[in-house]
């Protein structure tokens, strides 16, 4: 998309299209597929719901394609680790789509321990007229068969079925926090707190460990891996972020074990803002390559940073998401909000970045105009087809009308998961157990 039209989008021209409420289950991940036709959500109950965009109808050109439920399936079930007497949560931590190569759709979904490859396919024909069995399936008496007949495919109601094609299990001692499909479309990585494993999509009983930061003595453990992603074009390059605020770029061609990084991105700490919470708020919760592959975006507790892969010593851009929380860190530490892991996303042209905040707010930053906007995903404030109104948080002094003060923010309503359509200005925002899909205003 052109940059001009992207700039226009920032000026609160998003309108709310539809509100899909999932059944009292908290959404734990959202992801568009590579064409934007499908949108997958995973929830705490281990279910995956896939939405499909309707084809635009000529009779109603104003009505852009809406997203309707396409398939629902139970991806992961709760399990029990008998060795440690611990339950393994069925919550879906991440979903990643594979690019479409045939009529079927493939996605990877993961909980804390197991990654699964799901095939979602349509069936709209059914063979009828079997020779040896009748329509109920009962075997016909061979003596009654006098002629040969060949089954014929007859049309039937569309059925979408999801089948688990691969199960990649028993490779992670710690909780898987991310998965990423390689641009070679043959391999993917799964990342837990201390290790990154490389898999081949065809092979489930073996994986290669490519990063291991577990110390020999666990008492010396001070840093964990928080996220990892493959480079979008370079199939040998991947990046992973840590709880200490650093990002490492690794090249798999260098060595089988990528403990030695090629590039190390870290911003020196600002001594003026140092506190006991400095390390916690510097912990990176998400890392995303830009579509171009030239930039890296990281999200820590208070900021989003864009890094140039050629410059390691400091980020190219830093955006304050909710700096008014800086003075509240002690309280946020006490109520555990400081450990929330927010995600961040690029738009299709890498000109706008988006991330979530509290009170069901989410923020967008235009990298070119340096303008930003705060929007809210809530039923009360949006009607269908209404334009979202920008919100503002009052940081001190007089509170203007329509502004909300910091102390009135609802910290139980947090937007951790968002996704942006790869080509168009359509975003999906998960607010606890509600999914909001916003589209660009049609002119």
């Amino acid at each position, binding site marked *: 998309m052109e940059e001009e039209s992207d700039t226009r989008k920032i000026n609160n021209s998003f309108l709310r299209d539809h509100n899909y409420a999932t059944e009292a289950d908290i959404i734990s991940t959202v992801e568009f597929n590579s064409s934007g036709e499908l949108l997958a959500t995973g929830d705490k109950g281990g279910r995956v719901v896939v939405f499909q965009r309707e084809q635009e109808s000529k009779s109603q050109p104003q009505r852009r394609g809406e997203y309707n439920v396409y398939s629902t399936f139970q991806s992961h079930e709760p399990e029990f680790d008998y060795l440690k007497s611990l339950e393994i949560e069925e919550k879906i931590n991440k979903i990643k789509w594979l690019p479409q190569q045939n009529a079927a759709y493939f996605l990877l979904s993961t909980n804390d321990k197991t990654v699964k490859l799901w095939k979602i396919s349509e069936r709209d024909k059914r063979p009828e007229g079997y020779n040896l069995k009748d329509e109920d399936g009962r075997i016909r008496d061979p003596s009654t068969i006098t002629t040969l007949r060949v089954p014929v495919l007859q049309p039937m109601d569309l059925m979408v079925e999801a089948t688990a094609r691969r199960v990649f299990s028993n490779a992670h001692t710690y909780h898987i926090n991310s998965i990423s499909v390689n641009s070679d479309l043959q391999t993917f990585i799964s990342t837990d707190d201390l290790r990154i494993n490389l898999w081949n999509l065809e092979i489930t009983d073996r994986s290669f460990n490519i990063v291991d930061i577990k110390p*020999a003595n*666990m008492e010396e453990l001070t840093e964990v891996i928080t996220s990892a992603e493959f480079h979008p074009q370079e199939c040998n390059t991947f990046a992973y972020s840590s709880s200490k605020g650093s990002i490492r770029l690794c090249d798999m061609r260098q060595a089988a074990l990528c403990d030695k990084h090629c590039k190390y991105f870290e911003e020196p700490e600002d001594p003026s803002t140092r506190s006991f919470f400095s390390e916690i708020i510097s*912990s990176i919760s998400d890392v995303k390559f830009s579509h171009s592959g030239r930039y890296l975006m990281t999200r820590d507790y208070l900021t989003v940073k864009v890094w140039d892969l050629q410059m390691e010593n400091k980020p190219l851009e830093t955006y304050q998401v909710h700096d008014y929380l800086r003075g509240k860190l002690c309280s946020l530490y006490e109520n555990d*909000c400081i450990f929330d892991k927010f995600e961040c996303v690029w738009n299709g042209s890498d000109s706008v970045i988006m991330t979530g905040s509290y009170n069901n707010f989410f923020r967008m930053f235009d990298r070119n105009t340096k303008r930003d906007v705060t929007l809210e995903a809530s039923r009360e404030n949006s009607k269908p087809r209404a334009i979202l109104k920008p919100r503002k948080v009052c940081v001190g002094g007089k509170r203007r009308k329509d502004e909300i003060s910091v102390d009135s923010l609802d910290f139980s309503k947090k937007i951790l998961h968002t996704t942006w359509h790869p080509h168009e200005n359509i975003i999906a925002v998960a607010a606890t157990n509600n999914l909001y899909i916003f589209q660009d205003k049609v002119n």
Partner: protein
Amino acid sequence: MTTMMPKGQKRKLSIEEESSDYRAPTWESQQQFLLTVSLNKYQFSQQLREPSLRRSVLIANTLRHISLHMSMVPSVNVEVSQPPGIASSALTASIAAAAKRHCAVTVDSCSALATCPMVSLNYSPNSTEKTNYSSESNFHISVEDDEDWGSMSTDTDSSLSAVISSILAALDSTIDGNPQPAPRIPLRPLENMSKPYEGSVALVNHGLRDPGDCREQQEDGSMEVMRSSYLGDFTVEDLFQDIDTSLVDIDMGVIGHRSTEGGHTAGDDLFMYLPPFSPHSPFSPHSITPTSQNAQPALIGQLA
């Protein structure tokens, strides 16, 4: 709705006015508050069915920072009416309580070890002061808008850092059933039962990991010592000359339950709370003597 301010918090003087004066009770109490909150957090996370490693590591790092900062300011210890050990003992009391809960969660690979040895609060020589202090720890603290905790130092408070180490070691036992010797449960020869799990992971990982293999062997090394201790090895007897070493041959379940019996000697308790005999232990064997009163609080801290 999650509240911003902790309940019952009274607003006091601005922290900025007092940040330069480390001897001010408000500043020190805020630090203690943070310490208590962090400990409570850690304890609570251990009760969850699946503690998050990231969260635990971040809390442990924060605790480390706090302990470093507390040790950096010597005037704090001087001004406080109670001896410096109080901070440690309050910490150990919390750790002890955490250990109690933690044991319930940790998988016990040895079936005979039905319960973990508990650190009895009454056992500590500082028990009375400890009780008094813990009631003080819930005092009201102001949470200011602009909190400035000041810079950190690199000095080390050995007892607190030992406690932090014990947290991480305990964390390891919970999170990962790997064969690290658990400080809380002495003489656990069957920790290697978790090794088959690791072993299968190694198989899955296709054996490309030579460093990993070495690591396993290193853990084996410490495991060997533990195992031999269980069998009444010379090493253990060396350390505890004055203790009836026939205890070594007694079924672990009996030893585990001894804490419930009354009237045991200090020496027996000391034997129960044997720290892990590994090269990584912060305590050298010579410090583990029943006659050394100074070492005791630190010892308990390590074992919790």
